[in-house]
Structure formats: structure tokens, C-alpha cells
């Protein structure tokens, strides 16, 4: 397997094994980008559990994640295995209250 295939397989596993996963620059506590910072804050605000991957700490993911779902920028939010979007979409979902209910539903699915 090429480095690209291996990384894409790893991403696929992360996305499928975590009900909510955020790929971001930095961490929710120490974000390295304004867009990642806002997105992580919106997720924290829901009080729901989520996983995150710091793309700056993994050069392979940083390079190949944009190819995974044809989404060229970070952050990227996946809920229940599906790309939801980046910062703008996450904030829209948070404002409408959809974000919390989507996260609750995805987390409940795994718990049951």
C-alpha cells in the first residue's frame, strides 16, 4: 500500500470508529487556527463527547485528508461517519441547535 492509501485507510477507520470526530489545527485547548478554534468551541459548547485529531501533529493526515472527501481545508467535522463540513457549516448547525442533536444521536447509537 502507498503512503496515501495507508493514510486514507487510517482516516476511514477513525471516521467510522468515532461517532463524532473533528480534524483540526491544534487541540480544543490549544487551537492553532481561528477557524479550528471556533469549530472546537462550538462542539465543546454542546456538552457532548467528541474525538479530535490534531492534523499539525500528523503530516500524513495533513497531506491526505483533503483527498478523503474532496474537502481542501481544515477543520473538518465528521458525525456518524459523514462529513458535515468545516467551520462555517459547523457554526450554522450550532446556531440552529442541530449540532447538539446530531451529536447526541450519534453518541447514543454507539452506547446502545
Amino acid at each position: 500500500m502507498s503512503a496515501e492509501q495507508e493514510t486514507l485507510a487510517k482516516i476511514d477507520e477513525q471516521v467510522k470508529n468515532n461517532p463524532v470526530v473533528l480534524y483540526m489545527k491544534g487541540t480544543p485547548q490549544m487551537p492553532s487556527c481561528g477557524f479550528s478554534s471556533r469549530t472546537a468551541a462550538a462542539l465543546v459548547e454542546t456538552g457532548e463527547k467528541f474525538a479530535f485529531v490534531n492534523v499539525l501533529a500528523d503530516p500524513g493526515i495533513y497531506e491526505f485528508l483533503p483527498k478523503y472527501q474532496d474537502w481542501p481545508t481544515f477543520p473538518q467535522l465528521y458525525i456518524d461517519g459523514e462529513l458535515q463540513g468545516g467551520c462555517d457549516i459547523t457554526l450554522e448547525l450550532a446556531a440552529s441547535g442541530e449540532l447538539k442533536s446530531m451529536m447526541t444521536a450519534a453518541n447514543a447509537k454507539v452506547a446502545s
Partner: protein
Amino acid sequence: MTMQQQIEDQVKQMLTPIYMRVDNESHMHAGPAADSHFKLVLVSPAFEGLARVKRHQCVYKALAAQMTHIHALALHTYSPKEWQDSQTIPTSPLCASRRN
């Protein structure tokens, strides 16, 4: 041609917007790149009935050549009807590294 013009031309051609606004927000960010951060507000009939994630993917596809050069593109996409009902366009964040 500036990056801003490239974005405008490309979007006009590919997505036939009824309203478009491109803001260069590079001054809000750290680093030397003057053409690095943009905000795009777009109203297009092509977005009617499309989920937000698909709309953004359409825009990224139209701007594939430009996306390799720019660092961030804030996107606010509306169908004509949503645009009529909408109140405000959200503001973009400053770089985390500019806050300190």
C-alpha cells in the same frame, strides 16, 4: 490577475451566482501572504435543494486551482430564497496566532 479576480471570474463562470461578494481577509492573519484568506458570499440557484456540505464541495471544485494557493476560504452559500430570508453574514475569525 489578482487572486480575488481569479476567484470572482471562476465562480461567475462555474456557479452563475445572482449575488457574489469576495472579501480579501488576509490582513486579519499572521504571515507574509497578502492573498491567503478570503471570504466568499454566494447566492446561486444551483444551491437550491443542496445540503450545505455539497454546496461547499461545488465551490471547492470550481476553485480547485485557486485552493492550492489560498490558505482559508470562509464560505456562506445561499439559495435565492434563503438569501431573501437571511439577516446577516457571519464575520470571520482572526488567526489564533494574531491574538497574542
